[in-house]
Every structure is written in C-alpha cells, then in structure tokens.
C-alpha cells in the first residue's frame, strides 16, 4: 500500500450478530483479515483491501488478469463458504463490491435495509444446490462401408440415430429437473456451461440451481443420487451447499423496480 487508506471489500450481508462462528484464521481476498460491521439490524462481512488493487481503475484492469481473477473469486467464495457452513442466512454479494470507507459500508447497509431484510426472510434456512447433467456424443461401432451406397446409408442412419440419442438425453435431463424441482422450493435454469470453460467433457444439458430448505436437503441429495443412477449414459454432477447466489438478486425483490402487479 502506498500510504493510501484501505478500501472495504464487502462479501456478504447477514442478520445482526450472526457471523460469530467465522474461523479466526480465515482470510478473504488478497489474504486480507475479515471484519464485521453492524448497522440497523444487519451485519456486513468485509475486508480492508489495498486501493492500489481495488480502486475503480486498477480493479478494471485486474479483472482482466485471469490469475488475479481466479485468486479473488476463490477468496470471495472461501468467505461465503465459511459463512454458509454456520447456521443463519447469508446474502452473498457480487464479486468486487467495494466501498471507500466504513461510512460507505454503513450507507450500503442502511440504503438497502428493506431489500436485505426481505431477502433474508425469504432465504433464511435454505441453501442452493447445483445440478448439472452432461452427456457424451453417441458412440460409433459400425464397420467401414463396403460400397458407396452403404456409405451414404450409414451416414443417413448415423445422423438419425445421433439426433435420437441427443433427444433422449435432453428428455432425461428435463425429467431430472422436473423431479428435483418438486423437492426444491425454487429453481433457476442457468445457460449450459461451455465445455471449454467447465473442463467437463460432453454436452451440458442441464445447469440448474435449486433452493432447498435445510430440512429437505437430505431428501434432495438422495433424490439426486437416485436420478444419477437411473440416467445410465448421461452424468449427473451435484454441487453444494452454496449460499443462495442464484436466488439473492435484489432486483427480484425490490418492489419499486418491478412492473405493476395485477390486482
């Protein structure tokens, strides 16, 4: 740090007094120690971070640096993860939510108090689980064609059977979603992850997030395990428990931004 006052990086908002169980040696982004700051019945979990990295201009450039982005994202998630492990609601903030000073964090809490409280009420006692289904391209076992006509026939047949195999896999993925959705309180379907980004082989046919009340988590995970076994070819990948990232958007909750409701 070059003598500049540190900035405040905010990870999450929790109900007041909640994050008592944070491990003492837990460090946030850039290996920074954690602080909590209470205001109006809410607590912000934050870290002091260097302005040289987190002020607007350097941050913009840093976010383009993949190694830095990965370290920061993992640091952010590490804190959210530790908070999620303890009982109580955690509202995870988006990566790189940074305030100038303590007063800025207080303004953040005070200015959004109603939205935060609404979200906490809606999400308390629930966790997010991620379920993805991947399917590999159909296998080829045919012999080499003997004649030109065989070759063309084989190609037509191959195109037809491939298409049918994908349709079956997609239907299976849809069925997995429907079954999980029955146990979950809410669900969101996210765009399929690019195989090159996720490192998974095969096509991502389902990328779902499920909001599951704690008392139904066991049931949800057992169901996911059962469905994975029934799938046969396609693979099912379960991650969780996550903080309810996919259900925490305040734009969902802010009444003044929604179009007029009927009635």
């Amino acid at each position, binding site marked *: 740090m070059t003598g500049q006052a540190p*900035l405040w990086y905010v990870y999450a908002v929790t109900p007041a007094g909640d994050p008592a169980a944070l491990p003492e040696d837990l460090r946030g982004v850039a290996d920074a120690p954690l602080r909590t700051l209470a205001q109006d019945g809410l607590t912000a979990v934050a870290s002091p971070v260097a302005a040289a990295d987190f002020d*607007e201009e350097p941050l913009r450039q840093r*976010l*383009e640096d*993949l190694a830095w*982005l*990965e370290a920061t*994202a*993992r640091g952010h*998630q*590490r804190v*959210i*993860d*530790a908070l*999620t*492990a303890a009982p109580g609601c955690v*509202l995870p*903030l*988006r*990566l*790189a*939510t*940074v*305030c*100038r000073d303590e007063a800025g964090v207080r*303004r953040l809490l005070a200015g*959004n108090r109603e939205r935060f409280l609404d979200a906490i009420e809606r999400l308390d006692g629930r*966790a997010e689980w991620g379920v993805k289904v991947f399917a590999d391209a159909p296998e080829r076992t045919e012999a080499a064609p003997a004649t*030109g006509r065989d*070759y063309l026939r084989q190609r037509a047949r191959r195109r037809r059977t491939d298409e049918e195999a994908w349709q079956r896999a997609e239907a299976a993925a849809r069925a997995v979603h429907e079954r999980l959705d029955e146990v979950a309180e809410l669900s969101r379907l996210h765009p399929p*992850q690019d*195989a090159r*980004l996720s*490192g998974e082989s095969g096509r991502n046919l389902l990328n779902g997030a499920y909001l599951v009340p704690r008392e139904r*988590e066991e*049931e949800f*995970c*057992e*169901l*996911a*395990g*059962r469905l*994975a*076994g*029934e799938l*046969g070819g*396609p*693979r*099912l*990948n*379960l*991650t*969780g*428990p996550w*903080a309810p*990232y*996919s259900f*925490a958007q*305040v*734009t969902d909750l802010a009444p003044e931004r929604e179009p007029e409701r009927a009635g």
Partner: protein
Amino acid sequence: MTSPAPRGAYGGGSSLSEIGGGGSANLADILERVLDKGVVIAGDIQVNLLDIELLTIKIRLLVASVDKAKEMGIDWWEQDPSLSSGARTREPAEEIERLRDRVAALESRRKEETS
C-alpha cells in the same frame, strides 16, 4: 480451507459426482456465481461487471483454457462440427474427395465391363 461437509446423505448412483460448494468447486462454477449472481448492489466503487467486462473476462477465460487444454493435447472439440467451424468445413471436403475416388473407380469398372 476445506469446503463444508455435505449435509446430506447421498444415494449410490454410479454416475453421480458430488463436491462441496467451496474449495474443490471448479472455477467455472465459482465464477458463474460470484461474477453475475448474488446480491448485485453497487458499492462506492463501481465497476460494471455486468456488461462489457464480464463478456471480455469470459471470452479471455475461454481462450486461455482452450490454449491450456491444447498444450495438454486435448483437442477433441476440433473434430466436432457443432463446436468447431474448422471441422465442419474439413469434413465435406474429405467426403467429396472420397466420393470422387469412388465415382472414378466405378466409371473405370463400367468402362471395362462395356468394352
């Protein structure tokens, strides 16, 4: 830092892979959540991750991981027409070549038979 212990008991599905939300989760899953989900509230310092930056990050990440995978010899998507435009243009060219040979062979056989 270990990820939190899973709270549920898991069924014994053979194709089920399961990991905690934290430590071991893959980067794509973490970025998917921390970049554009969660509570999107502007701090005092605002970098608009939601539009152009997010896009460039994703594209660069994609490019970086593609290069890394290629270094490791993983290039299966290059053979897949749905993932690579190169594969799509290559395949018909090879096919036309094969068909041409086949037609030539048939023509010469036919010539022999009729003569």
